[in-house]
């Protein structure tokens, strides 16, 4: 379970890119956990939102890249709305998704054939459009 961290890892390319395109400074976060306490998607997450930020602070690129949390974030912005340090985690989650999708492609995150005709007949367009925009590389 030992994890070696180093200067090059803490300032690694991937985490630097996440910081750059999200516009968020992970080091503003002091890990109070308020975001995690109020996040509606935690049940389906493997890392709490605050842990995702912690992994980024440590530069643990592989763990962050493989986490499930970014994919179940609903961009509801509750984390940001209550963050005592003004960190917008919804932007960090989006940055992770976007970089991942750009790196490895859609990976079958969303597939219209997964849904029944009845479901598609009732689901509003905004659900499909935003779903596809969130889960396809852009």
């Amino acid at each position, binding site marked *: 379970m030992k994890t070696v961290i180093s200067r090059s890892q803490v300032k690694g390319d991937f985490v630097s890119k996440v910081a*750059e*395109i*999200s*516009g968020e400074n992970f080091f503003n976060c002091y890990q109070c956990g308020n975001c995690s306490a109020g996040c*509606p*998607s935690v*049940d*389906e997450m493997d890392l709490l939102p605050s842990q995702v930020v912690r992994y980024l602070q440590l530069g643990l690129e592989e763990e962050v890249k493989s986490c499930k949390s970014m*994919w*179940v974030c*609903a*961009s*509801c*912005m*509750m984390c*940001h*709305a209550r963050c005592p340090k003004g960190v*917008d985690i*919804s*932007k960090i*989650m*989006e*940055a992770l998704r*976007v970089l991942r999708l750009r790196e490895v492609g859609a990976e079958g*995150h*969303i597939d219209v054939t997964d*849904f029944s005709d009845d479901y598609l007949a*009732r*689901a*509003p*367009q*905004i*659900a*499909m*459009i*935003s*779903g596809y*925009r*969130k*889960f396809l590389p*852009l």
Partner: protein
Amino acid sequence: MKYPYFPGCTLYTKAKKLDDAGRECSLKLGFELDELKDWTCCGATFPLVNDQHITMSGPTRILADTKDQGNDKLVTLCSVCFNVLKRTNNVMLNDEERRAKITDFIERDYHGEVEVLHYLQLLRDEIGFDVLKEKVVKPLEGLKVACYYGCLLLRPVKEIGLDTMEDPSIFEDFIRALGGEPIEFPYKVECCGAFQAVHSMDTATRCSRDILRSAKNSGADVVITTCPLCQFNLDDRQPEIQKSDPGFSSIPVVYFTQLLALALDLPAEELGFERNLIDPLPILKEKGVIA
């Protein structure tokens, strides 16, 4: 008085009832929703990373069209469209670099001149809830309404500025103007799961369950929303919720314009309630809101 109006894709089809009722009611209230010409989809997402500009080209074009058609305001009914257009407009106003990139790409001249308004905001700030109250023909007396805001109508508060985040009141004030009884419930600003409805269904089901339970436990007869995605999640997830929680009792979820229409005495049969999975008619009849 005419207000330029952006319906958006969903309101043209699956949420037609939200749109129809909104337009009809505006006529009763003395203004007209003047549909923007040649509008396109807003994109339904505002990009949350700063190197992604393409998704802003659509909403920027809509805003530039609004301006070029001689308007300085644009009204929306859908929370998603409202959020996307409003936030895009903020970028056009405040972020010179991104503005230039996007307007150069779509070859339009736009600097954020249009004010994006939600219909509720229009009723509160331009028409006035006191005027609305006077125009009510059939007050929603005794109807206990859970006013569900969700995310996009409010957040991010600093950018949207419609109301406060934890304890907003515009929706409750609206229901009071209609003569109904807004009930407080702790989940009114929580998320319904949003687009996870087409990805992580469990998230949408669980989020919707928590919201609906909370509304029901607080004594609500009906939940209202401004958002077709919220309406879909909250309404359509109920059979699934019931499977995992047999004690769950269903509650209808309707659009705010539908209740507005009833209070203004528009015929209930024209309001599209038949599209709801959980039929609101029994409770509306029981409460005497419709005959």
